[in-house]
C-alpha cells in the first residue's frame, strides 16, 4: 500500500477472500472497500500554514445471515484479527435483527454489462505531484499578492482514491440496483487549487479556483488564478452600498456554476413522478402518477445542459449500468431527460440507469465578457456566490450571498466596487431571463469528501435580467 498509496485491485480481492473465509453461519457477505491518499497544502497571510500527506482506507463488511437482518460494520484495519472482529460483529448484528420475511439473494443475476467508455479519470501527474512541486506552486501564487502588499490565502490538494465492491452472491460484475451491486475496481485522481486575496484593511477580497482530475491542468492555470485573485482584490476595495433590488447581472462562470447547484441536482424523474421538485407537471389519473415536464420547454432555448463522458474535461467515474455515451438533460431549452435508477430503466425498456448531472456542460454562447459589459446600461458583475440555501423545492427559489468581488456596471463600463448582497432568486428564473451567453470554461467544483468522486463542470458566463438582490451584506 505504501508504494501505491491506495489499494490496488489485487489488494481488494485478497481482502475479500479473507473476509469470505472468516464468515461463519452461511448467508451473504458483501464488502465495499475505499481507499484514498491526499497531498494538501494550505496557506494564509502569505505563508504556507500547513503541508500534509494523509491516507486512509475503509472496509465496510455487510453480513446477512439466513432470516437475519443486515449487519453493517466498517473498519479501517486490514489485518485478519480486525477483519474477523468486523465479520463477527456484523454477524451478531444480523442475528439480532431477525427478519423472517426477507427473501434470500440480492439482485437476480442479469445480463453482463461492459464498463462504459469514458475519458481518463486517473492522472499520473496528480499522483506524481511532489511536495516540493506543490510548495513551489503555492509560493508562486503567494508572490504576486505579497508584492502588491496584499494577503494571500489558499488551498491546493492532490488526491488519489480507489473503490471496489464485492459480494458472495455474484462472482462476476453483474448489474443490480441496490447497494450490494458489485463494482469493478476503479481508481481516480482529483486536483484542486483555490486562492483568496484580501487587502490589509479587509475592505477588498478576490477569489479564483480550478479543479480537475489532472494536476497538470490546475498547475498550468495556477499563475492565472493568482493574478485574477489579486486583480479582483484590488478592484473590490472600498465598495459602495447599493440599494437592494432587481439588477441585470453578468455572472462569471463560477457564479453560474454556484447558482446552478440546486438546479442540476433537481434532474430526477422519480421525484417528478411523485409530485415533488420543479419537474412535475400535472397529475395523471390514468397512470396514477404525476406527469413530468419532459418534452416541454423549461428554460431559454439557447441553453443546453449535457454530459459527454468521452470529453476529457468532463471525465467522471461512469456507473457500470448507466446509459453509455452522452446524456442531454436540457436541449435548446427543452427538458429531455431526468435521471432514473436501473429499475425504471428496465421498465422503460432501456436496460440502463440514467445518471444525473454529476458532471455537466452548459452550452456556450458567442458573447465575450467584454461585450456583455459594454452592452450593459446598468448592472452588476458577480464573481461567485457563497452560502447557498434552497428555500423552495418546487420553484428552486434559493438564497445566498455574493462573495469576493461585485461591481457596478454603468453605461458599458465597470464603475464601482459594490458591497455584497444577499440574493433571493431561482436558477430557473435566471435561465428564463438570459440575455447573453459567453464561452463555457471549466470551473471549480471539487468533491470535499476524501473518497468523493469527480464532479467536473464546464460553464459559460451568463448575462441575465431582473436578478433579485434582497438585502445588503456588509461582510467582505
Amino acid at each position, binding site marked *: 500500500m505504501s508504494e501505491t498509496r491506495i489499494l490496488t485491485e489485487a489488494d481488494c480481492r485478497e481482502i475479500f477472500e479473507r473476509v469470505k473465509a472468516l464468515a461463519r453461519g452461511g448467508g451473504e457477505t458483501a464488502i465495499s472497500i475505499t481507499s484514498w491518499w491526499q497531498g494538501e497544502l494550505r496557506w494564509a497571510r502569505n505563508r504556507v500554514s500547513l503541508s500534509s500527506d494523509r491516507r486512509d482506507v475503509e472496509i465496510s463488511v455487510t453480513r446477512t445471515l439466513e432470516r437475519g437482518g443486515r449487519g453493517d460494520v466498517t*473498519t479501517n484495519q486490514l489485518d485478519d484479527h480486525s477483519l474477523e472482529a468486523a465479520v463477527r460483529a456484523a454477524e451478531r448484528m444480523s442475528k439480532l435483527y431477525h427478519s423472517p420475511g426477507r427473501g434470500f439473494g440480492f439482485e437476480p443475476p442479469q445480463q453482463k454489462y461492459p464498463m462504459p467508455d469514458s475519458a481518463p479519470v486517473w492522472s499520473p501527474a496528480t499522483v506524481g505531484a511532489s511536495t516540493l512541486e506543490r510548495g513551489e506552486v503555492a509560493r508562486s501564487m503567494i508572490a504576486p499578492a505579497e508584492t502588491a502588499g496584499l494577503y494571500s490565502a489558499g488551498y491546493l490538494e492532490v488526491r488519489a482514491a480507489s473503490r471496489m465492491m464485492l459480494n458472495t452472491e455474484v462472482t462476476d460484475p453483474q448489474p443490480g440496483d441496490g447497494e450490494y451491486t458489485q463494482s469493478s475496481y476503479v481508481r481516480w485522481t482529483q486536483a484542486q487549487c483555490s486562492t483568496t486575496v484580501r487587502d490589509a484593511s479587509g475592505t477588498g477580497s478576490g477569489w479564483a479556483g480550478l479543479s480537475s482530475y489532472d494536476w497538470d491542468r490546475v498547475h498550468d492555470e495556477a499563475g492565472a488564478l493568482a493574478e485574477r485573485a489579486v486583480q479582483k482584490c484590488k478592484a473590490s476595495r472600498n465598495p459602495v452600498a447599493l440599494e437592494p433590488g432587481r439588477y441585470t447581472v453578468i455572472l462569471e462562470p463560477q457564479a453560474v456554476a454556484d447558482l446552478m447547484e440546486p438546479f442540476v441536482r433537481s434532474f430526477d424523474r422519480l421525484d417528478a413522478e411523485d409530485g415533488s421538485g420543479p419537474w412535475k407537471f400535472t397529475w395523471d389519473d390514468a397512470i396514477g402518477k404525476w406527469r413530468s415536464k419532459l418534452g416541454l420547454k423549461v428554460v431559454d432555448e439557447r441553453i443546453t445542459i449535457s454530459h459527454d463522458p468521452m470529453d476529457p474535461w468532463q471525465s467522471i467515474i461512469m456507473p457500470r449500468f448507466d446509459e453509455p455515451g452522452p446524456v442531454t438533460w436540457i436541449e435548446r431549452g427543452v427538458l429531455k431527460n431526468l435521471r432514473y435508477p436501473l429499475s425504471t430503466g428496465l421498465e422503460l425498456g432501456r436496460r440502463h440507469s440514467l445518471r444525473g448531472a454529476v458532471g455537466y456542460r452548459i452550452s456556450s454562447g458567442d458573447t465575450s465578457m467584454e461585450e456583455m459589459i459594454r452592452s450593459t446600461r446598468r448592472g452588476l458583475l458577480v464573481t461567485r456566490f457563497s452560502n447557498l440555501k434552497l428555500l423552495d423545492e418546487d420553484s428552486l427559489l434559493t438564497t445566498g450571498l455574493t462573495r469576493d468581488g461585485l461591481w457596478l456596471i454603468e453605461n458599458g463600463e465597470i464603475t464601482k466596487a459594490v458591497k455584497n448582497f444577499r440574493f433571493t432568486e431561482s436558477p430557473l428564473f435566471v435561465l428564463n431571463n438570459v440575455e447573453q451567453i459567453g464561452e463555457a470554461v471549466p470551473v471549480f467544483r471539487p468533491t470535499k469528501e476524501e473518497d468523493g468522486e469527480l464532479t467536473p463542470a464546464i460553464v459559460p458566463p451568463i448575462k441575465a435580467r431582473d436578478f433579485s438582490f434582497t438585502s445588503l451584506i456588509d461582510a467582505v
Partner: protein
Amino acid sequence: MMISRRDLVKLGLKAGVGATLLSGVPRWAQAKALGIAPEMPLPITDPWIKELALRAVEAARSAGAMYADVRLTHTRGRGFSPFPTSVGDSERLSVGVRALVDGYWGFAASPIWQPDEMARLGREAVNQAKVMAMGPRRQIDLASVPVVHDEHWTMPVEIDPFEVSPFEVTDFLMGLRHFVKGFSGFKPGDYQPLAHFQVQEKAFASSEGAYYTQRVYRSLGELKIGYEGGARKVGGALDTLTPAGLGWELFTGQAIREQIRQLMEELKEDASLPLKPVEVGRYEVVCDAQTVATLADRTLGTATQLDRALGFEANASGTSYLNAPLEMLGRFEVGSPLLTLTANRSERGGAATVAWDDEGVRPDEFTLVREGTLEDFQTTRESAAWLVDSSTKANREIRSHGCAAAPSAINVPMLHTPNLRVEPGSEALDFDGAVASLEEGIAIRHMGVDMDFQGLNGLGQSSRVYEIKDGKRVAMIQGAGFLFRAPELWKGLVALGGEESVRRYGLGSSKGEPAQSVFHSVSAPPAVFEEFTVIDPKRKA
C-alpha cells in the same frame, strides 16, 4: 493454545513482549510467531501504544523537527434507527504526526499502528514541513504549556453505550416510537428516533515530553414529531438529545416521555392557533433557549475564533467581523452590557469537553465577552502568541485556551469552538414568563441561522414563530424570516432568562480545508431582543 495479553501480564512478560514488538516486524506477524493473539484493540493505556507514540515523535525529532507531536485515536461508532431497523458499527484506528521546522508545519497521517509506520509518519511530517521551510521565513511561537506526564482521563459517563446491548437500544427507541404513535394525530418522523454513540480513545505525545491518554464519549439522538390537528399539519423536534459528552444516560437519564408530552402539548397549541402571513417590520422578540444558543454560536462563537479573525480561514469558510483583534480586545462593544459569553472544555456532559486538548493543553475556563465588551478570543498554542501585544499590555499570561481539536488523528488539529455559555440574567425569567410580559411582539422557537462569511449578517428561519398580544400567543406566523447584523442583534438584547431557564445544546461546526466537523455544547437562557427585523425570506426584490 492461545495465550492472551492478559495472561502475559500475569506472567510478567508484557514489558518484554512490548519491546520485542518494536523491532520493526509487523505486530500481527510477531504475535503470530510468538503464538499469541493480542486482544484487539489494546486499551489506550497500554505501554505498547506509548512506545508507538514515542517512536513517531523520536523519528520526527531526529529528522529535524524543532517540535513534534503525535495523536493516536481509536474511534468506535454505533448508529441506530429503529424503523426500518438498522444498526451500523464502525471502528477506526488513526495516527497523525505533526512537525514544526523553521516556523512551518508538516503533518502526516494514516490508519496503520505499527512501529515502522510511526517512523515513516514522523519523517514524512518533517519532510512536509522542511520542503515548505525552503520558502521565506515564518516565525511561530508556541505558547508554553505545563507538560502533562503520563496521565489518563476517562470522561465520566454513567452508562457506557457500548456496553448496552444493541437490542436494548433498539427496543428503547422503538418504545418511544410507539409512545408517540399512541397519541391520536401524532407520528414520529421517518426513520426516527435516531441514536448515535461514539467513544474515542486518544494517546498524545509531544517532543516536550508530554504524554496523556484519554477516553471521550459522545452520544446524540433525534426525534421529530408531526401532528395533524384539523386541517393543519405542524411539527417539532425534541431538543434534549443533541450531541453531548454523555453515555446511554443521555436517553435513560432524563424524562424523555415527559418531554415528548410537553412537545405534544405545544404542537396541539400550534395547530390550534390561526395562521398569519408575515408582516415585514421591526418587533420585540422573545427567543427560546435553543434560538439564543444558536445565535450566540453562529455569530460570536464563530467570530471569536482567532485564526478566522486573522485571516487563516479566508479561503475556506471566511474571516470574522472582529477583524482587528489587537485593537478590539477590552474595548470593542459587541453587544448590550447584559451579554456575557464564557467558554470552557471542562463542563460535565459538554460535547467539546476533554481533560487535555489536541496539543496537550488543559483547557481553562475563559470569558470571551464580559458585559458586552470583547475580552478574549479562542486560542491554540500557536494562535495564543498572536495576541502577544495586547496580552503584554493587559499584563496577561500568554497561554492557549486549549481549543485545538480534530475529529480524529487522521485530521490535523486546528482551532475549534469550545463549549460556550451565555450567562443568564439575574432575575428568574423563562420563555413563558418572557412571553407573558410581552405586550405586543413575536416569539420564536428553534430558529435555524445562516451567517455570512464573517459571522456578521444573518438570516434566521423557523417554522414555529408566534404573534404575541397581551402576553399570549395569538397566531402562528407562516414562513417568517429574520434578518440581523450581529452587533445590532446583541445591542438589542434587553432581557435574559434566569439560571433555571438555561438549556444546553450540542451543535456541530465545520471548518478548514479539507473541512473538519466537530461538536461543542452551547448553553443559553431564553432572551428578549428589541428591534428585530422580520421579513418574508421567500419574497424577491
